[in-house]
């Protein structure tokens, strides 16, 4: 496993929110804008107040692409909690996003 993705590299701030998400996008491409909108919706709906979302434009910091081993874009890297997971796509498939995030939607909300 890439050591860069090791959670130990990113020591948890004791006061930080439960979910730490990094979203890598490429400017204002349709996929990227959709991805930003979708993930914001999902987070607001399911993780309100419990998450921190960092959005990075790889065009601005191209060296990050290699550093974070990006291939497909948009990519969301879930840094916390639990294992690091990556998701690629515009997050239109909500089921999979929630599953990957480890969020079980409360049945009352559905």
């Amino acid at each position, binding site marked *: 496993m*890439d050591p860069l993705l090791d959670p130990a590299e990113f020591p948890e701030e004791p006061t930080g929110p439960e979910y730490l998400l990094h979203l*890598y996008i*490429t400017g204002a*491409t349709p*996929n990227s804008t*959709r*991805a930003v909108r*979708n993930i914001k919706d999902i987070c607001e709906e399911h993780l309100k107040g419990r998450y921190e979302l960092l959005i990075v434009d*790889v*065009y601005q910091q*191209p*060296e990050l*692409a*290699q550093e974070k*081993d*990006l*291939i*497909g*874009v*948009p*990519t*969301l890297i879930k840094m916390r909690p639990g294992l690091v*997971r*990556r*998701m*690629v*796509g*515009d*997050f*239109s*498939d909500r089921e*999979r*996003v929630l*599953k*990957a995030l480890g969020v079980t939607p409360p049945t009352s909300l559905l």
Partner: protein
Amino acid sequence: MQEYRSSVDSELPRLPKSPTGIEGLDEITEGGLPEGRPTLICGSAGCGKTLMGIEFLVRGIQNYNEPGVLMAFEETAPELAANVASLGFDLVDLQARKMLRVDHVHVDRSEIEETGEYDLEGLFIRLGHAIDSIGAKRVVLDTIEALFSGFPNQGVLRSEIRRLFRWLKDKGVTTIITAERGDGTLTRQGLEEYVSDCVILLDNRVIDQITTRRLRIVKYRGSTHGTNEYPYLITQDGISVLPVTSLKLDHPISNNIMSSGIPALDEMFGMRGFYQGSSVLITGTAGTAKTTLAAAFAEEVCQQGQRCLLFAFEESPQQLLRNMKSVEIDLASHVASGLLRIEASRPTINGLEQHLVTLHRLVKEFKPDAVVIDPITNLITVGNIAEVRSMLTRLIDFLKVSGITGLFTALVSGRGQQQEMTDEGVSSLVDTWISVRDLEGIGERNRGLSILKSRGMAHSNQVREFVVTEHGIELLDVVVGPTGIVTGASRLTQQLQEHAQTLAAQQETDRRDRELERRRRVLEANIANLRTEFESVEEELRQINTDAQNRQETLTSGHQRIAAANPPRRDAPASGEKN
């Protein structure tokens, strides 16, 4: 390669090419890979695809000062560095000098969750950043199809890979993409070969338990190229592609003559020897002194102060030196002086291509004026005739192009199918063909030597008998018998007969001389007799004359006395008048 390019240049514009620096490949591709375009290298496992890619980058940096980017999908940077370190490629150092960037792309399906539409812009950005950061001109993507295992959405991948090729072209970088060979197709995805401008297929096949690696250029947009399958090798210096034959026949030639080392043999050639840079083939059945002839040539070369490289596939150097010493061919001193180098190895030690590469390497190292291979036919044990033939073709071609005189011995089997192998094989390539053979007569074998061909000079048509003596090889004078040229015991008989005849003729002459002498002596005796007779007659006649004179004188004096006593009358006649 350099000269090749210049010689091919014509008035027409040519596709710009990026030389790979890989031995032989630039000749086949007529200058290199298409510059600024993607090239696909495909092949099955163990073909050396990755190695070819890395060598392309490293040679580009070392020889052409073109920085390169290696994007590896399968191996990590330390693994790659370790793998090619044995070839003398120091990837770590090149990376430190900012001439090379190695980017390992980790693709793991289990770590990636597809959640909707996406593209591979991340890859583009990585690659673009790597290229821009060192100003790379060359890019290798090894093996791009690894993406297919990580991203299940084929549609996206295919269109993205297409876009990647387009993007690489726009970037103007010369790219090599490697791909595994698919079943019946060039690549597994059947995609890369259509979007690449050049496709090189590597093949690793086993025939008769011998592995041969072969390379073929499947397509090359906008350029001609060699179309054959070319063997290639992974040597200690990297990849070496061997063009089956040089693509042109325009090597420089020499008018210098090299002696064969046997004066009488030189006499059989119109120019008293071989042309320098030509190739000479000596064929013969077992035990016809082929090696001795070859050694005599090697010795002669060294005696002229030139360098000779001798490949011995039958004998060890020590054995060769000892055996040749017995016929007064002293190779040891030339080995000691460094003019002669003997490379002995069993043909089976290597594959054919390896032999060829060894030869290329040694020729480049040693820079000989002549190369002797004894015998070339032993190589047949390594490959089949067709392969040996193609290898020999390349070998002879290589020597000719390098202007090196090549002398090869070849064993031909049996009388019936004599020259079977060489006839089809190399005889059309060699310039001079000397045949040595057994002339089997009644109860004995003799060695006969003849020149089958010698390009560019007149040559003797005779079959000359030769003997191997303690002083080397001696060609015997031609002895013509009643039924043609005779050899061996017949020759001796013939010579004895001739000797006897000569003797008889001599004796006859002597006898006639003696007869003449005798006659002369008889004649002279007769002459002496006659002279004696004549002398006695002469004597007698003289005596008579003298007597008569005396008488006359006496008479005259008597008359005078009488006259004195009776003085004559005045009118008396003078004295002498008889009374």
